[in-house]
Structures are given as C-alpha cells and as structure tokens.
C-alpha cells in the first residue's frame, strides 16, 4: 500500500516536471529566442537550467500598461512578529504610472525573461546568511529598490513613511489611493533656450512638433526622468553637463550648429517651406517614417509622385488617388489629362472626348475609394 503510494507520488512528480518543461519549451520556441542569451550549456534542463549569472539590465521584457498590473500589493514575504516594522502596503499602480516617465516597468522589474512577471524572490534569497553574495537578499532588494528613488526624491530615510510600527499596533500610515494622483503633465508648445553661442544664441525647440508632428513618444526623449527632475528644489535638468545630449540622439549636434542656433526665434516646422513639397493636401496623416524610411535621414526624397507611388513597371500607380484607370487611359502620359502637370486642377477630357464627357461625371476607369 505504502509502496503504491510512493510510486504514484513519483509518477505525479515526473509528469508535472516533464509537463512543465514542455510548457516552457513551447513558449520559448514560440518567441524565437537565442538560447545562449540565458543558458550557458547546450542542453538546459529543469533541474540544471545553467542560467547565466544575474543578467541584470540585460533581460527586460516587461511590456504592460500600469492598468494591467495589480492595483496595490502588501509586501509581507519577509515579515515576522519579531520585526520592528510591519509589512508595507505598496501602491503598485501609482508607482507604475510614475515610472512611465523614466524607465518604465523595468526600473523595478529589472530582470524578467519572456513570459510571466518574475517575483523578486525568484532571484533574491530570503536568507541574509547565504552563499551567493552577488545579489542582495530579498529584504535588501526591496529596500534598495524603494530607497533609490525615495532618497533622491526626499532625502529622508524615515521607515514609517512606508512601514507601520509593530510595537504600536497601528495600521499603516500609508493611505492607498486608487486613482491617478499626478495631475496631467502639460506639454509645452515652444521652448526658447538662450545660449552663449556667438553665431546664434537662440535655440527654439518646438515641443509640440516633436511630440505630435514627428510622432515621438514621451519616453523617446524622457527616458531618464525621475520625480526629482521636476520636483527638486534645484532642477537637475538645468545642471546637465552637456545640453546637447538630448538632441544628439537624433540630430548631428557636432556639425550643424546653425540648424538650431539662430539669431532669432525660429518658426515651427513646415514641410512646404522647408522642402517645397506640400504635405498638407494628401500626406498630412502620415508619420515621417512612412516616407522617410531610413531612420533619422530626412533628405533625398524627390517631390515626384512616382518615387513612392509606382507600379511594378515603374509608372505612377494611379489607383492611389482612388481611381483605377481602365486599359485605355492607363497608357496615357500624365499631362494628357493633367494640364501642365498641375494635379490640383480639374483634369481635362475634351482633348479626346466631346464636351459632354467631363470629370467627375465621367471617370476614366473605376472609383475604388
């Protein structure tokens, strides 16, 4: 009887282990990953996954919105009654919303292989007296994670700002707020920088151009923000060593000084004025990258329709306008209908047809849009 019981236990354990492996393999293969990114050996097993040593900041695949995470968490994994302080109520959603302005989820979830969110205790051991000293224990990991921001933000180390006191038997002093507390950040339209560059002291930065016209995400530029950047008494931003740093990720700040440095306040970006090609009529909905395929290179496109809209044999693909030309009309040159290649004017039909045939009553093909 006992043997049978043990046998069934072993069988169950075997099944669950192998099933777990199959599940993991499935998700791993689906994601088309390089095995060597995480595993040292050729054939990792569940028992010996031979994972590389703490790949901090190298494996961050947390892609969630703050709403998808938990609202609030009680951190009590290491708490005991002998402790001076009680467990912490952590406003997870609030913090994840704040994190969007800096590094996102991965500031805290700094190691997360593809799949589920890995718990801190997955890597950080609960015992302080342990063999692996390369990463802090769980208690230290929690505290360091919080103190990193709270210290630079408040310069305070008061335990009670997060913990309740066990001796006083009082509830946590931290009030949990469900809704977003940070007021919506007002996006500036235009920022004018006065610089000490002789040949052009004024740099006009059109924030709204960058954020809406150029379709940049806030985090494309604001990836290293912290609460203190805005809320500290001395704004850290203003003491940044090189003010060009932020621009130079996209712009060549080494050579083209006078592109930004002008003697007076510059005008906002206008595609027509700047390039001669008016995008307002037909191309206003497009993002820059849809035409300018090479990243950060915004020159070299000719203002000819054929450059982007061509058929396989190199002629203009008229279907893009919403009218698919029939077999007869597709053979014509553009100027046969569009006088002087002026496409804003009404096309003419009476070069070939009688006056009773005119656009748009009659269409040289079929309307497809």
């Amino acid at each position, binding site marked *: 009887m006992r043997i049978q019981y043990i046998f069934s236990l072993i069988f169950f354990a075997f099944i669950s282990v192998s099933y777990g492996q199959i599940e993991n393999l499935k998700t791993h293969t689906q994601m088309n990953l390089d095995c060597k990114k995480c595993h040292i050996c050729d054939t990792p097993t569940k028992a010996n996954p031979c994972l590389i040593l703490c790949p901090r900041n190298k494996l961050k695949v947390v892609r969630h919105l703050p709403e998808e995470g938990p609202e609030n968490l009680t951190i009590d994994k290491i708490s005991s009654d002998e402790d*001076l302080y009680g467990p912490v109520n952590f406003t997870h959603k609030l913090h994840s919303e704040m994190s969007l302005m800096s590094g996102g989820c991965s500031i805290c979830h700094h190691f997360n292989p593809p799949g589920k969110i890995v718990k801190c205790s997955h890597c950080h051991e609960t015992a302080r007296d342990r063999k692996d*000293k390369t990463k*802090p*224990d769980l*208690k*230290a990991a929690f*505290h360091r994670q919080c103190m990193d921001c709270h210290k630079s933000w408040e310069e305070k*180390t008061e335990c009670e700002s997060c913990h309740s006191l066990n001796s006083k038997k009082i509830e946590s002093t931290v009030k949990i707020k469900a809704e977003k507390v940070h007021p919506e950040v007002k996006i500036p339209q235009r920022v004018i920088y006065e610089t000490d560059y002789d040949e052009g002291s004024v740099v006009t930065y059109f924030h709204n151009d960058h954020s809406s016209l150029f379709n940049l995400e806030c985090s494309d530029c604001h990836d290293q923000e912290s609460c203190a950047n805005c809320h500290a008494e001395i704004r850290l931003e203003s003491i940044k060593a090189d003010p060009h740093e932020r621009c130079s990720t996209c712009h060549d700040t080494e050579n083209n000084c006078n592109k930004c440095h002008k003697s007076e306040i510059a005008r906002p970006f206008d595609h027509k004025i700047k390039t001669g090609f008016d995008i307002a009529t037909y191309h206003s909905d497009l993002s820059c990258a849809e035409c300018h395929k090479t990243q950060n290179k915004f020159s070299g496109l000719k203002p000819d329709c054929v450059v982007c809209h061509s058929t396989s044999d190199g002629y203009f693909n008229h279907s893009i306008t919403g009218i698919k030309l029939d077999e007869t009309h597709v053979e014509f040159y553009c100027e046969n209908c569009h006088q002087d290649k002026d496409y804003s004017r009404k096309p003419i039909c009476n070069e070939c047809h009688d006056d009773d045939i005119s656009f748009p009553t009659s269409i040289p093909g079929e309307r497809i849009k």
Partner: protein
Amino acid sequence: MSQNRREFLKTIAAIGASTAAISSVTPKKTIAKTEPFLSEDRKGVLVDTTVCIGCRKCEWACKGAHGFEQGDFENYQNDEILNVQRRPSTNNLTVVNKYIDEGTRTVKMQCMHCEHPACVSACIVGAISKKENGSVVWDTDMCIGCRYCMVACPFQIPAFEYYKALDPKIVKCDFCIERTSEGKLPACVNICPVEALTYGTRNELIDEAKRRIKNHPDKYFDHVFGEYEVGGTSWLYLADKNLAGNVFPKLGNNTAPGVSESIQHGIFAYFVPPIAVYALLGGIMWLTKEKETKKENK
C-alpha cells in the same frame, strides 16, 4: 660587597648566554606573528557605502547585542546627529557619520579587525588577540587599562572607560564574536535594511567587491579600502570616492606594527644587543676595578 656584585654580573652573563643559545635555535616570530593562525576562511564584512542610507539601525542593533542601553529606535531616525563627526565610544561600538565631499555619503565605522593588528602588538599584557576567524578580541580580565592600544590603533578605534574611577577598561567592536560562534550574523549585518554590510569570508568579499567595481565602474571608486591598507583589514569598504584621506586616514600598505615591532624586536634580537651592552659595561667595570685595586695596593 664588590665580590657579590661580581657574582651577580657573572650570573647575568650566564643567563644571557644561555638565553641567546636558546633563542638562536627557536624560530623567530616578528611581524607575521598572526599569520600562521589565520584561517583561509577568516571572515570579513564588505561595507558598500553607496547603498548605505544612514538609518543607524546598525548602531541600535549593536547596542542591543552588547547589552548597552539602546534607547527608543525611533529616535535614531533623527539624522541631525549625522552632521556631527562621532567616534566609537564605550557604549556605542559603531557609529555612522555623514561626509560631504562632492556628494554625500554615510559611512559606518567600527574596529576594522586588522589582519596584523597594531593593538595586539602594543598590548603589554597580551590581552588583545587576533582570532582564527579574523576578529580582534580582548580579555577584559587581563586588560590593565594602559591605553597603549588606543595609541597604536591606526584607525583610533579603542575607547576607554574614563568615567570609571576603579578598574577602567578598553572597549571596542568585538565582531559579535558571541553571535558568530553561535552561527549568527553580526548584529549590524543582520539588521541592515539595504544590506550595505555583507558578511562572508574575506577572500570572497574581495572578489565580490572587485566584481561590483568592474560591473559598475561609474558608480564606484576603483579601490577596495582595507584590502591592502595597514597590511589588510577584515572590514572592507567600497565607495563612490576615495575614502583614504577623507573618511579614513591616509595609511600605507605596511602593517601597522611592522615598524614598531622591528625596532622593539631588533633591540632584543637573539639577545645579542643586550649581551653586548652588558659585556661592554662589564668590561668597563672590570678595567676600572683593576685600576682601583692597583691604586689601593700602592
């Protein structure tokens, strides 16, 4: 009377000669006195000052572990005290001080538990000893309160019970030897909320410290304080700035007792210098005595 003195000198010379003979066959122990006893697994603590938040919980726990009046731990959160530079005292074996120099850092201070302790060398009654596990401890009953260790210590750590009229003793961090012998962590290491203090074998801690410097060269000043200073210490420090000359005095890599011991031991090496001195004195006496007797005979 003169006969007696002569006899006495003879005896001394005989003793000297025999001691010289004995000491010449026994192995010489000087600077490396503690080395043969130190275990490869001797312990240490790595203090990472870049993560220290200056909460002073280590001070609170230390007092508790040594039976001192702890006071209310909530009072420790008053960080104004950090602005005062404190030294370890008889009822506060460790202190956290704040240092402002291109940024602020809080640094915990206590006995460094040197590899070659100057206090052990200086103690005239042999009350202080370096244990196999790396800790430098002392025997209160043997201590005569001469305070030589206070003078000898390169880090000025030992404190003295000046307030006691009778039988004052030396007090300092004992590396929680009672706790560690029970398999527990030192009290300060145990309580630190951010694990700014890592307890382990000295060798593994040096490796870990170097790994941290290598991985975060922008975060750390490239030096493990205590690896080589005064011949090495059990407590090792990592910081964003050079701690030598700021938090700690600028110390060479020679062992602290190295210089003093070489002089002291040199004077008595193989008992040759004392014998030479006595021989010289004896010779002078002999010669002058001969003259005197001659004079008397005349």
